[in-house]
């Protein structure tokens, strides 16, 4: 009966879409989840020890809220990466048409960005068998180093494919508005990010890649890759407090005390004075409210207004990070110029970034005075660069967490910067004061059991305390 068959096609919904629509969806969904309070706040900014939980302090004690973990995994795979994969598949039928090469290259670069985030968060992840739902709903997990190699090859290939003489996305690219050169710079910069993360695990390859790409990377804040949110629902920065005050987090004493001690000009941007006393007061990390010394939330500083602004950009990769990568590369003896210069450039870039973004006054004198207090010290490069990179990465919780566990840096001079959760760790696998990874979302244990089991073994045990391949210390 033909009529019955027709009736089952929803007449009100589209069955087709366009690459640029998928691209916007991929960019926005990825940023929405990576800068969401539940993921960036309760997971990444906790693990980076930027923030501590107020009433939900158990999250600061590493009792993972599985829903937040699942949402991170599900959104990046089934939405962001799925869209990017679909662009590439959709365009495969239009090979040779103008712009298709650039469109696919941009999709591949974004894909590399997100796969690296996933691999750095979990370790082994599905990669080669992903997005084959019509034939395979149980994709196997791949080794993260193999994924890194594949992503590096992919990025290298895209650099060759991107062609500024051709169109790319006329609309839909919120990050670079279809600018091919910008994407090319980002591809080089992402290769630097990958390479520095494997600097201890595979120093030769790291050196080779960084030396080959550092000159084509991002060179100023204007070239940074970021997703500029707008003040219109539902396109505001995900963790903004326009509709409802966000009372979940206080800035940790770790961040607060270190910045206050240096009179860091960024402090009034990173944090706001406490409600009760109008003072900058950090909250000790991972502290139960049952301690009689724990005061009301109003006595502690919440993250700054800029950090909760509706128009806060979602940062994919910023210029300061590139400079700190190069500073570290130089410190490690790679041939990328002077470590101190890159280090200073990184601090300056960060200061300028926040100055321009929040339209506050930070003078060059302020900056120079600050740099004088945290001079580059070759012998202490790990702590010096690590600390400043950590400050500059704020509020990119995920990248800051990865760098924290990779470099294990302390304050310049070797005093501890981070603290173990004040009221103790609730996850017994976490023995070094911070998780090295997230456990796989629970449903993988049922929906993809054989592959999950293999991955859990390969990664060294599906625990938050399991070090990933790039954690050598």
């Amino acid at each position: 009966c033909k009529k019955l068959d027709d009736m089952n096609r929803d007449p009100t919904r589209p069955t087709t879409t366009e690459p640029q629509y998928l691209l916007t969806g991929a960019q926005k969904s990825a940023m929405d989840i990576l800068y969401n309070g539940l993921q960036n706040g309760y997971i990444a900014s906790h693990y980076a020890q930027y923030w501590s939980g107020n009433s939900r302090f158990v999250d600061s004690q590493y009792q993972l809220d599985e829903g937040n973990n699942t949402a991170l995994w599900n959104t990046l795979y089934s939405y962001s990466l799925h869209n990017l994969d679909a662009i590439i598949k959709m365009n495969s039928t239009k090979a040779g048409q103008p712009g298709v090469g650039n469109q696919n290259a941009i999709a591949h670069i974004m894909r590399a960005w997100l796969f690296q985030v996933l691999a750095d968060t979990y370790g082994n992840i599905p990669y080669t068998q992903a997005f084959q739902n019509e034939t395979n709903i149980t994709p196997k997990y791949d080794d993260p180093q193999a994924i890194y190699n594949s992503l590096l090859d992919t990025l290298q290939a895209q650099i060759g494919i991107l062609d500024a003489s051709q169109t790319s996305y006329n609309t839909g690219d919120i990050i670079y508005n279809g600018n091919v050169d910008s994407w090319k710079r980002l591809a080089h910069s992402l290769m630097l990010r990958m390479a520095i993360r494997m600097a201890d695990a595979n120093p030769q390859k790291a050196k080779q890649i960084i030396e080959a790409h550092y000159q084509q990377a991002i060179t100023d804040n204007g070239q940074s890759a970021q997703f500029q949110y707008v003040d219109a629902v539902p396109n505001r920065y995900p963790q903004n407090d326009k509709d409802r005050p966000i009372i979940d987090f206080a800035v940790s004493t770790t961040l607060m005390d270190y910045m206050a001690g240096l009179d860091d000009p960024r402090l009034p941007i990173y944090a706001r004075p406490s409600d009760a006393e109008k003072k900058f007061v950090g909250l000790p990390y991972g502290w139960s409210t049952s301690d009689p010394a724990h005061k009301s939330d109003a006595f502690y500083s919440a993250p700054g207004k800029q950090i909760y602004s509706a128009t806060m950009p979602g940062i994919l990769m910023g210029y300061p990070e590139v400079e700190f990568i190069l500073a570290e590369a130089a410190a490690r003896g790679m041939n990328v110029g002077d470590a101190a210069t890159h280090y200073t450039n990184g601090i300056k870039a960060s200061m300028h970034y926040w100055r321009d973004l929040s339209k506050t006054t930070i003078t060059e004198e302020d900056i120079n005075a600050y740099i004088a207090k945290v001079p580059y010290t070759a012998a202490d490069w790990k702590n010096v660069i690590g600390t400043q990179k950590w400050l500059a990465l704020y509020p990119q919780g995920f990248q800051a967490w990865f760098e924290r566990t990779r470099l294990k840096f302390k304050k310049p001079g070797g005093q501890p910067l981070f603290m173990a959760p004040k009221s103790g760790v609730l996850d017994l696998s976490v023995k070094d004061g911070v998780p090295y990874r997230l456990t796989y979302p629970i449903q993988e244990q049922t929906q993809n059991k054989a592959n999950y089991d293999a991955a859990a073994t390969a990664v060294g045990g599906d625990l938050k305390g399991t070090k990933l391949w790039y954690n050598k210390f």
Partner: protein
Amino acid sequence: SAYAKPEGYLTAKLLQADTTVPVVIKPAAADTSIKQKPDTASKALPTQDTSKPKQDTSAKSTPDSTKTTTAPKEDTALILPPDPATAKSEVGKFSLTGNVKDDKGTPIPGAVIRNKTTKTNAQSDPTGNYTIKAGVGDTILVTAPTFGEQTVPIEKRGALNFSMVPSSATKKVLGEVVVTALGIKKNPRSVGYAIQEVSGSAVQEAKEVNFVNALSGKVAGVQVSTNTGSMGGSSKITIRGVKSILGDNNAFFVLDGVPMMNSVTNQGGQLNGGGGYDYGSPLQDINPEDIENISVLKGAAATALYGSRGANGVMLVTTKKRPDSERGIGVTYSLNAQVDQVAVLPKYQNEYGGGAAGSFDTLYYNQHPEGFLNEQSATYDDNNGKGRYDLLPKYAVDESWGPKLDGRKVRPYWSWDKNKNNPFFGQTDTWSPHPNNVKDFYKTGFTLTNNISMAGSNDKGAFRLSYGNMDQSFVLPNATNKRNNLSVNGNYEITKGVRAVASVNYTSLRVKGRPGTGFTGPNPTLQFTMYGQRQLDIEQEKRYKYDDGSQITWNRKSWDNPGISSSNGPYWNRYMDYETDGRNRIYGYAGLDIDATKWLSFTGRVFMDDYNTLEEERTAQDYLPGTYIKRVRSSREMNYQVTADIKKNFGDDFQLNATVGGNVMHRLWTATGGFTNGGLIIKDIYNLNNSQQPATPIDEYYEKQINSVFATANLGYKNFLFLDLTGRNDWTSTLAKGNNRYFYPSASLSFVFSDLLKEWKWLSFGKVRGSLAAVGNDADPYHSFNTFNYVPPFNGNAIGQFNSTYNNPELKPERTTEVETGVELKFLDNRVGLDLTYYRRVTKDQIITLPTSAPSGYLGAYINGGSVENKGLEIGLNLNPIRLKGGFRWDINANIAFNRNKLLNLNVPQYNTSLPILTIGTDRRTQKVSVVAEVGEPLGTIRGTDYTYLNGQKVVDSAGHYIPSELKNIGNAYPDYVGGITNTFSYKGFYLSALVDFQHGGEFFSYTNLYGEKSGLLQSTVSNNIRETGLTVPGVTADGKPNTVNISAQDHFVYNGGNRISKANLYDASYIYLREAKLGYNLPESWYKKIGAQNVRVSLYGRNLWLIKSNAPNVDPSNILNSASNIQGIEGGALPSLRSYGINLNVSF
């Protein structure tokens, strides 16, 4: 089929020829509202076995079963509503004559002919002839030893002859018909599967706003779950357990042949303990006063004629079609007044107030003089040079781990905001308990229901009009629920053998202020039980806003910031952030019945159910920007049905009743509306245009059609052996061509073996039955082809988003096969009745949203897969221990049902894979507790974390906290058995009945207990002085040594509670409940004769009277439902259950 019961054309004269009227007496247990499968033993002829409306004017006709009723026999004094014992006295008596013969034409001497109206008797003479004074409208009862009774109303002057049917085994004859699928009426003897009938009075006297809730405990194998604290909230009605892993498991309701749409449209998060309003089951639109009878079809054989829609069992509702009085125009008025009270509240602690760590904040005059009236008004001075100060409770903390309520002077939250001209500015209050601050928030609810109906009939036709209104003011402030019902039905014989029937029902529902459910602000339990401060004074909270309209909440951010930390005050929630909704619904049918020949007739019907629902949700603009959500849902279902009915005898021994027909079902439903973005422009104005940024529209459209042909045949042999065959073929629009056609067969056999064992005097009646059937289910619309979602564009850039679930063109219908067998026995002059049913049902190829690994690209895929087995035992028991000549009578009606279900496999042939486990839903807050389907385990298995154990001891870590286990199975949401026992005592117009229902087994995870303890609100957080002394939990460290670490009470509930260890807040859902008690009285005739009434009945009742036994603290385990979905066993902050008392008055004229 019998969508209308033609009235009035049956005259006494027509009964003469070969009538063998199956006399209808309500069985002994009728007063308990439940008709167990009636024990008919009358040798009814085949023509009486069927549902065919007897328009046949030939002599074959028999009275409609519901038409003739007997008055209570002398040894009973039952009130049999609606059963006026007497008809109007009339002048103009005449001498009625006739004869009484047996079914072979032999005269019966000595039969007693009683005119029930005039209460006079006569006897038949040796030739069977009799004479008695009678008038038109009188009712004649004929009894004779060894024959069944007959009751016949006199329609006109003229001879009235009776043909008596020998009663089986010399016992009293009880005859009745039952309503089966498609409304086909059958002699219960011929039914080869379990069927149970409930009379309308079960839902009329002790009323529930949603009549379905009144069925709890009354029918074996039917489980009704609800949450009485949620005004008009959802009811989940499952018959014989859940069968579908992810699909709908609720019974299908058919009212006079009209399939009633009953989809609950709550928002997703509402289902798993998340937030949202429970808009309830649209079924509550039905006016309980219109219900004559409910026929419960449980098994697949009983429902196979409904095809895919009957898979979860069917409730056939038959409405009243005739006057409650037996003749002429009758008017019935009923009045029902009911009060509702909160029955079960948690046990709160009253020793410690709000805050954290047992401490206050301080505010010094010297630092903030603007916070004080003057320096002297500051309460304290420690003489340490800092000056005078006040103690401030931690307003922003929504927990009660604050200081001891010791009467100290503190600055309450309402003593600030000088700039808002607060007259209480600067005042202090004592820090003291207010034990009744929750109880006093709830008021006494009141529900008034009026109903008036008028009905009449004559030779040509009949009609009934009914108007009812229900006006409920709920236990919560600013919560009302009003319903108006108007219904008209009638039938008319246009010409001989052609009858027109029609019915129209209109319902209007207007609701204001439903409570939120689960973890959402408008749920009052959120701030009373899950979070909150215990010391609050509810009287002060009634002042919830300042003159400028801004809110005063106990949960202010700080002393100088009146903004909301996380919670509105309770009265702000009720009066400012409220929902309204309403529904207009029209349903009914029209059609023709045509008698072509003596053995063949046709019916045609159009059925319609059409409604529009408006839902509006508001959040006031204040410290929050305000929102408005509006949804308009329209739903329409049309059914077009034609049947041909055949009745034929083959010789004396064989009878055939058959129906063939076809049906086209078409359903269309939409949702439109939208929600504001970025807040409201003008406060307190709720319109989508009053949105700071463009409102996002809601615009959805669904359509579905099923074409069907069906046939059924019932072949009877000598009225004791029956074979019933049915077949139905559906073509559905929701499956792709090639997979969209499916056939449902059934066969059942009924054998009344007691007919062959007449020498067994102790056995009144015995029947065995057995059936086999296959039914199935199709998909929801639009799951065959993939589409893209609409996402609001980003700054002018359109967004492409895949559906998260992969639609599948290869879907097939899911299939269910069921084997059922049962036995019905009556012993000892019907003093003992037993009904046993065993069934085994397997549902395979289930249509499920298979959750798929996100890296595959989708979070789920629609597929066929998995098999579920349900098997069970249903036992119905009727006892009549006392039956005194004086009129006293005691009846016990009990039922119990055991259902065991098991997921046999989760094979997914399409992907050539199989899953070990499938998650149905996960609780929203802890994200640990899931309801799962695991192979080899029952559906409804609850999974979460347990303690870890070492040699049977719980293991603690070095900090003295329990160590949670991996996720594992920790319980099951569904009970081992459920049932109910009704005891009824009756004596001369009085009756008293009490229903105790019970559930054994089943577990639930409780937010009430988890968060009530974590937030320091419940009594358990102060018991044994744990706040003062801390506690050392029993357990051992990893090396086996006893735990010696003392931890604080708060740490205990944070670290050892359900947030980490699900098992800590998992409770047994068993209960025993005194669910209903009724005391009724049929007023003596002399009392109401003057006003011309025929019958006046008054009853007092109570519902949900006493939770006799429960193992779960702080909640009513029978009252924890979040929704009618499959996510059960997660109590998401249940609203307190209600206890109701009412009075019911029923007057018939």
